[in-house]
């Protein structure tokens, strides 16, 4: 099993990376601060903790992709730049082994970091409010794992498709911008843009569901929708206001459950494209 030996070596060196420990510790401190400081108005103990994890989820939505991208963007590009890839491939490893081994290792790194962060946050929140709403805590954790994995997959795929550090950085920053920032900055409204193109430029009938469906391609939006699956009804966010105002039942592709499909697509398509490119390229 060469995938295992590649992953094992990679994980061992990641474990010794000071930068990763630093980032994880910082993130854990932030989580602890949120867990300690979060104080809702007139909430029961259980609701307090649930509310804490709801806020925590909002922070993760923005920061977790950064951690996952930073942890993974050099995974293969770095080896290609340093010549380490020649070492990996001088031994009985195929390119598939290297690709999957790196992916597995970086998934494990991010999962381990996330687990550490959640343990810290949970311990503080439970100690402070004296309640442990298992469903919300565990649910948020699992959805976050999925969300983090999406960005590890994207970063490893990009990393395998480019040959140099500088391009890997560019690709990672670019993907964060396109997948998160565009949907995060309040004044950039993707729905409005789509609406303008669809209605004004193409002159078609208004279709609010379509505008929202376009924004649903972002894993950031998908994460916020997925959190609704694990939060109690009164704490859920209405992500697609436009479709809501239009009234009627939400189509299947705009439901909270559909976020899992969005995640699945992000988890597979970039990896397949990245792998095919990596498999066919000259590694010098």
């Amino acid at each position, binding site marked *: 099993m060469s995938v295992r030996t590649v992953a094992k070596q990679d994980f061992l*060196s990641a474990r010794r990376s000071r930068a990763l420990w630093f980032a994880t510790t910082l993130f854990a401190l932030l989580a602890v601060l949120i867990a300690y400081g979060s104080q809702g108005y007139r909430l029961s103990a259980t609701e307090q903790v649930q509310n804490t994890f709801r806020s925590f989820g909002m922070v993760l939505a923005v920061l977790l992709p950064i951690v996952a991208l930073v942890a993974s963007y050099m995974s293969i590009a770095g080896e290609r730049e340093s010549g380490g890839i020649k*070492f990996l491939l001088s*031994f*009985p490893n195929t390119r598939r082994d290297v690709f999957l081994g790196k992916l597995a290792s970086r998934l494990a790194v991010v999962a381990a970091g996330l687990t550490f962060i959640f343990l810290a946050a949970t311990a503080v929140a439970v100690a402070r409010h004296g309640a442990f709403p298992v469903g919300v805590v565990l649910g948020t954790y699992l959805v976050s794992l999925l969300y983090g994995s999406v960005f590890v997959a994207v970063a490893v795929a990009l990393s395998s498709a480019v040959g140099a550090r500088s391009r890997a950085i560019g690709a990672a920053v670019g993907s964060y911008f396109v997948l998160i920032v565009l949907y995060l900055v309040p004044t950039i409204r993707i729905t409005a843009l789509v609406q303008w193109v669809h209605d004004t430029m193409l002159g078609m009938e208004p279709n609010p569901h379509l505008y929202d469906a376009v924004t649903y391609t972002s894993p950031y939006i998908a994460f916020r929708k997925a959190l609704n699956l694990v939060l109690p009804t009164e704490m859920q966010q209405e992500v697609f206001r436009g479709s809501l105002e239009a009234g009627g039942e939400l189509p299947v592709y705009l439901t909270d459950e559909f976020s899992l499909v969005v995640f699945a697509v992000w988890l597979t398509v970039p990896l397949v494209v990245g792998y095919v490119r990596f498999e066919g390229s*000259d590694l010098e």
Partner: protein
Amino acid sequence: MATIETTGLTKSFGDVHAVEDLDLTVEEGEIFGFLGPNGAGKSTTINLLLDFIRPTSGNIEVLGIDAQERPAAVRRRVGVLPEGFGFDDPLLGREYLEWAIETKEADDDPDELIDLVGLTGDADRLAADYSTGMQQRLAFAMALAGDPDLLILDEPSTGLDPNGIQNMREIVREQAERGTTVFFSSHHLAEVEAVCDRVGVMNEGELVAVDTIEGLRESAGGPATIQLECATPPTELGVADLDVVTDVAVDERTLSVTCTGASAKVDVVTHVAERAEIVDILSESVSLEALFNDLTDGGRDGDDADSEQAATEVAQ
């Protein structure tokens, strides 16, 4: 069965033919020196053998296995010292080596390999902190893991001190004696001369010569010089009249003859011996360096005046 066999192997990067129509055969058990100036296509060929890069056309078989179709099967039986590797991960020298042994599914003793390459006492340091020469030694130990059937060494002496080079040569010879085929790329002539059974010379992507070193010397064009010390001043022996002789000089009792090739020297000696008493013979063989320069047109520096001089230099 040949250990390495390429047929019509071509690799182009855009308009540049890094390797062109290469037919290379390396036999089992030999130490094959792969020689050429920078940019001649040596590394490209090695990268092709190991499937780091894909050929534009042509076939490659290593140990009878198609290098493109089953690269992992090739790598299982080959030990590689790649050029331009990196030890960037925060891992100890020993850990790198253990990883190599594990990946090869071998049962080597890491300490034995560490001693073999002269890294005793440094195995438990971070490989990233090693000097270039020490990294080269570690890489060499990793290449030796799993007792490979073929060793591919790309510029192996890079960064090594003279002791390190000596040690590496000995290991290479030992490996060859045990039946390992060694494929050895270098622009170091002395190195190739010292260890290789056969040499292939690359120039501008093409294989311009393949032969034993003796054979190459034999076929080397260019003038050969011989000095004969005679009992009496060797004048009027008619040496200059021989067809193979291009120049004759007499200095007291020493006759210096320049002739067309190495084999012509015998004619000169025979001719003189019949007419005078020879006290001593000083024959200068054509060096591999002169040969190398000849074959590669002086490499990248072919236009320099220096190479002209180097081409006519002779070894002791």
